[in-house]
């Protein structure tokens, strides 16, 4: 029996003037999934995640989060989700500790709980010794960790992350990954966009690929892999085909799905 989806969209679309940035997207993310949302630059990933988190109004379609219609119950939905948007949404003139306290209070935590969790999160994110520094003075990686801490301070059931690993070093990325995996283990659902396909491949159980505003693939990583391999075995002499016994990487699946081409050696021969 399939559980009711945590995130579901029907015919979700968004138009910017003449440009149809998101075109009739139907997404289904089940509870407890670590879901990767992929696409080339300008495919509509950030637009979609903004609509899913209430930062952007859809031009058409419907969004349900945790069984609630986002258009009708925005506050109830927001209470149960956490978001790290594209620009991280930090308040630069607060200290790290003050910002987390503020975030906790905005999500309705008591003063004491907010303070307690802030301290724990700063400790976990290895930012405890920086707690009195202004957020604007944090490095990019530290800001990412802080944004992530603010997004989870209220213990959300669903977490939306737009490029959480962009500009983050290996140590910080490790910290973030372990926290996210911990959340999944406790039953949360995570929806992330990332350009770093290796990370998505390692973390995500399910992925969807958006290309030119349309959803071109969706499912478990294994399912997508099997689909692409079946396509490949139907057409012979493919130079992107893996060696016998090797699995297709997510990058290969991605390139196959969005029709990406590797440039030949004849171009830029002077390099």
């Amino acid at each position, binding site marked *: 029996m399939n559980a009711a989806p945590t995130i579901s969209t029907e015919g979700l679309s968004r138009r910017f003037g003449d440009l149809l940035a998101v075109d009739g997207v139907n997404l289904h993310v089940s509870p407890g999934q670590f879901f990767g949302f992929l696409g080339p630059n300008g495919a509509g990933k950030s637009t979609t995640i*903004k609509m899913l*988190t*209430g*930062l*952007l*109004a859809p031009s058409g379609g419907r969004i349900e989060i945790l069984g609630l219609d986002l258009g009708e119950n*925005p*506050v*109830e939905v*927001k*209470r149960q*989700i956490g*978001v790290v*948007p*594209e*620009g*991280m*949404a*930090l*308040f*630069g*003139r*607060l200290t790290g*500790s*003050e910002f987390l*306290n*503020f*975030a*906790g*209070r*905005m*999500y*309705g*935590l*008591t*003063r*004491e709980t*907010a*303070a*307690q969790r802030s*301290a724990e999160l700063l400790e976990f994110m290895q930012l*405890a*010794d*920086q*707690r*009195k*520094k*202004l957020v*604007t*003075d*944090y*490095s990019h990686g*530290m800001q990412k960790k802080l944004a992530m801490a*603010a997004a989870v301070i209220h213990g959300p059931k669903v977490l939306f992350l737009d490029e959480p690993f962009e500009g983050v070093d290996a140590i910080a990325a490790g910290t973030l990954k372990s926290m996210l995996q911990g959340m999944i283990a406790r039953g949360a659902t995570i929806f992330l966009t990332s350009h770093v396909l290796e990370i998505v491949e390692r973390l995500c159980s399910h992925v969807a690929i958006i290309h030119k505003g349309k959803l071109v693939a969706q499912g478990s990583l294994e399912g997508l892999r099997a689909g692409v391999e079946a396509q490949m075995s139907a057409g012979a002499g493919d130079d992107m085909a893996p060696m016998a016994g090797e699995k297709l990487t997510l990058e290969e699946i991605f390139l196959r799905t969005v029709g990406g081409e590797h440039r030949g050696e004849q171009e830029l*021969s*002077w*390099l």
Partner: protein
Amino acid sequence: MMPRPGEDLKPNDAGTNEAGEFRARGNPPFPAVPRRTQLTAIAWLRWQLFVNTLRTTRGQLELLSRILVSFFFAVLAFGGGLGLAILSYMSLSSGKPLVVAVFFWMIFVFWQVFPIMATAFASTPDSSDLLRFPLSYSSYFLVRLAYGAFDPASAIGSLWTLGIVAGTTFAKPSIFPWALLVVLVFVAFNIVLSQTIFAWVERWLAQRRTREIMGVLFLVIMLGCQLIAPLTGRMGKGARPGLQRMVEAIVPIQQAFPPGLAADAIIQAIYPQILTALSSLGLLCAYTLVIAYLLHVRLAAQYRGENLSEIAAASTRAQAGDLRPGWSLPGFAAPVAAVLEKEIRYLMRSGPMLFALIMPMVMLILFRFGAMNSARRQVPFFAHTPDLAFPVATAYAILALTNLVYNNFGGDAAGIQFLYASPASFRDIVLAKNLTHAVILAFESLLAWTAVALLYRRPSFAVTIATVAGLLFAAPLNFAVGNLLSLYSPRKVDYSKFGRQRASQLPALVSIGVQFALVGIGVSAFWLASYLGNFWIATLLLLALAGVSFTIYRVILNSMDRLAVEKRETMVAELCKG
């Protein structure tokens, strides 16, 4: 080790491996890039950057305004040059050579101060961005000097100094080559000094803490300038004016500094004291070299790739187990208290905003002491009508809050996404922001009342109550209009930055209109009360109006959630701009 001037440095990342073996297939080894090619490319870059600004209508309007400004500069440069030529000639002919020193000082001050005022603490564009290219250190140094040589201050200053050369040549034709040489060194000194100042100011502005200290210092200097006129006015009184004594003391001292030395080199050559003239020019050259060395120290550090990261600079003083809960506000929801706390913290960390908020007090002090010391008006402005001082200071306090009230979310910048993503209602968020403004206004009014009581006399009870009634009328209406405009025309601002930040035109115009209307109504009520000889009439009128304005405020506040959702795209797009 720091390189010596003239010595070329190797860039940080030269682009080849240790053995210098990297070579693309079929390519010859990397050739040396001729300096001329690079300098031509940089000149082209500057030109192209200018041309590309014309692609937009705003850029074209900008060009129009630049043409007008250039015309103004041309008049200033040529007119000033001609004027200085005539004045130099006259002063030398009439045996008052020291006046030439005053001209050199004027030019010097203009040359160094004008670029700072004109750029309002903006950093020199793209000069350090050039470091990614294989630019030699000497080319980099030259580029920085060239940036300085082609700015309006240099052009105007150079023409003015040439005016002095012309004047002295008319007074004594044989002096021309010497005067030209002196003036050329003086021009070089000024160009190098202005670039040195910029390079060091850039260094200090690169870090938040030093930037804020610089900003406060700048404002203190500006405030100090406001008090110069009253002080000199006071010095001008008495049998032997203090100003004259000061000038007599300054004359020998100024001769030891570059503008004085430049003047001295010319004057001594006229009379003629060749050795003294030579020594003055020699000292001027020495000053130029020392300043050039300071510039070199800074540019060499930039060239090597210094780390001005805030991470390295900021101290870490956190102590373990330091749990501090946020504020609570009895009777209000948690988000209201959280936003209020955030707003107050932002305000306390914003030097420019704090400065704007103390301005009403500064104005009271200036009115009090400025007027007292001026030559024409012996009695302070408000001394005739001290009852007006408190309402006027309070009205000024409302004006000082305009930037905050009419652009509620400007300082939140990318944080606006957090507010939208959180479950807090915008009604609560806006209410908290308005509460902050109300607290500031109350505090300011209290300060103004105290300042008026100390500087003039204690405002009467009736005037105090009428002013409070005026506040109760003006503030909610101001907040209501401000809340609407904050959603309809948001503009990202950095309240930590001093200097001009482009304001949104619509809120600026509307705020002026609203302030005029409010002040007009307030003044009418006070005038009527004063005419009838009873300030309680003003109180009653203003309290009745306060009821109306509070109702308007409530209606608009209750529509905030709906409007915020309607305007979310504009808000996020505008406030999250890079």
